[in-house]
């Protein structure tokens, strides 16, 4: 008998393979502009997966993700423009520094629910103001210009397609790390903390330690996403990392489906690409976007992932599968 979480339904496998194939071949079909925004969506998918690890698998509401994104982006951007360090180094430094900055926040992890959300929101505001005001370091409100495109070793990733594949592989790695962390003993401890902290403690789980580990890992991944963002847009502005960005990442995770890694990726794509797709509606586009969001939430499912699971369940029921089994295979909510 195997761990229930480790088993994946044939639908999920099929969807995963189809999605992967689509992602792998996408640069063949897309123009520069579309590749640019899909690449952005990919980078934000990484950030969304990092938040999912906290929100969906540890039960920690963080509105501090924009801050980690900012720390990562500025670390990488400054090292690349100021010290001319190579991309491989700046991206590692971005992850490390973001992870280190998250250590400051470990004491507040004992706050619950919305209280944690507000405290981390405070962190986002603080980091935003530091980026804005410490001009000697960050160039302040003028922003940081001239960040080189990503490059690895002697091979410059000159073409947008090459960069796209780089982002894709880092997204893949982030998903893999997140997946490994949510199954097995570590992930079980995280879910236990999310579902009932008292019972988790009584089972001998060091709640503070596990929360801190999840938080730091999430910050490291978000920092790396920030570094990619810096090299992708090549220009950083403090307002890229304001409070609204944190809310946006939260939207991605909830639109995709809380508690699903794939959902976080889908959510990021929807939140990033839908307003683009709605450009034809001009000044009505955000209005339509908001309406669609309400409709999606009104469907009552756990985001798009939840919608897919219900749909798959309906199909499998028709194909006379045992519905209970599918239910059990779902990742813990």
């Amino acid at each position, binding site marked *: 008998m195997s761990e229930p979480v480790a088993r994946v339904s044939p639908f999920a496998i099929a969807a995963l393979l189809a999605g992967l194939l689509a992602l792998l071949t996408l640069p063949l079909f897309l123009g520069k502009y579309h590749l640019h925004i899909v690449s952005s969506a990919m980078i934000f998918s990484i950030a969304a997966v990092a938040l999912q690890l906290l929100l969906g698998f540890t039960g920690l509401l963080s509105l501090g993700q924009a801050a980690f994104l900012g720390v990562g982006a500025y670390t990488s951007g400054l090292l690349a423009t100021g010290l001319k360090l190579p991309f491989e180094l700046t991206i590692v430094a971005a992850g490390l520094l973001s992870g280190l900055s998250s250590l400051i926040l470990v004491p507040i992890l004992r706050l619950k629910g919305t209280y944690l959300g*507000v405290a981390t*929101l*405070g*962190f986002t505001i603080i980091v935003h*103001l*530091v980026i804005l005001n410490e001009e000697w370091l960050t160039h302040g409100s003028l922003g940081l210009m001239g960040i080189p495109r990503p490059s690895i070793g002697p091979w410059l990733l000159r073409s947008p397609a090459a960069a796209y594949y780089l982002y894709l592989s880092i997204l893949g790695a982030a998903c893999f790390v997140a997946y490994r962390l949510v199954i097995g003993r570590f992930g079980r401890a995280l879910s236990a903390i999310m579902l009932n902290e008292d019972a988790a403690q009584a089972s001998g789980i060091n709640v503070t330690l596990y929360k801190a580990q999840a938080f730091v890992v999430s910050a490291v991944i978000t920092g790396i996403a920030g570094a990619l963002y810096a090299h992708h847009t090549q220009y950083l502005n403090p307002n890229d990392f304001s409070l609204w960005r944190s809310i946006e990442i939260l939207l991605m995770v909830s639109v995709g489906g809380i508690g699903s890694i794939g959902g976080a990726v889908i959510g990021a794509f929807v939140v990033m690409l839908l307003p683009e797709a709605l450009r034809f509606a001009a*000044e009505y586009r955000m209005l339509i976007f*908001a309406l669609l*969001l*309400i409709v999606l939430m009104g469907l009552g499912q756990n985001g798009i992932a939840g919608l897919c699971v219900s749909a798959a369940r309906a199909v499998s029921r028709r194909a006379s599968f045992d519905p209970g089994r599918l239910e059990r295979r779902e990742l813990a909510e």
Partner: protein
Amino acid sequence: MTIAEMVELLVGGLAIGCIYSLIALGLSIIIRATGVLNFAQGEVVMLGAMFGLATYRLVPLPFPALFVAGALFAGVMAVIIELLIYRTLRVRRVPMVNIVISTIAMSILLQNGAQLVWGSEPIAYPRLFALEGLQLGPVRVAPQLVWIVVLALGMMLALQLFLRFTRAGLSVQAVAQDPEAAQLMGINLTRAVASTYGIAGILGGAAGVLLGSMFYASFNMGFLPGIKAFVAATLGGLGSIGGAMLGGIVFGLIETFTATSISTAYKDAVGMVLLIVILLVLPQGFAGAMRRGR
């Protein structure tokens, strides 16, 4: 800083704080009654300001009447939104997080809708007060600030009286504490929740008219005060009425005094650092401390 300056700042901080308190109160009673963190509360504030203005253009009423009109309109709008959107979602028994996300969507929707209706430029409020401050000895106080403090405190007092001493107020409290048991007393939940949103809307709309008269009205005027009120409500202890009032005033004072005595650039950051420190000591905000103290 001279004493006179201190007093002036105190009045200014108190006025801003009172406005935060009104918005935070609205957030708090909605959380109490439904558990929903209403991200669109800031936009209700904006609606109040806009409606107050529209009323003035129709009939140039004196300020207190304008205040009431804006507040009532916002209350009605809040009820309509609740019945049309949030209630529909609740009836469908969607998870709580879906409702919270839909309030974020509502905030986007109202902001963009307001932009289409009222344009993107700030709109000046009519001059309702003398601009020159009243000179009281060495202290100079703008009459507007006095009005704001008086009206906001009056509003909060009225809310307290309503909740404590009227049967309707007790019913609202009952729904907040245990909706199911309240239902068993014959309280119509739909109506009760709608009136809670209505009260929150009235408070928000009142804050909107005050904000508008102090500054100006614009489609995005509610977002930042909404976030700050959210922080204030948390500082006070989510869902606590007294906490929300205290949290708002404390937050307003912190903001004003930080700007004067510490750093204008880091004005908001100092507030946030204090917030984090306070939450570390009192993980449930002021209300949690009061509860423990008893």
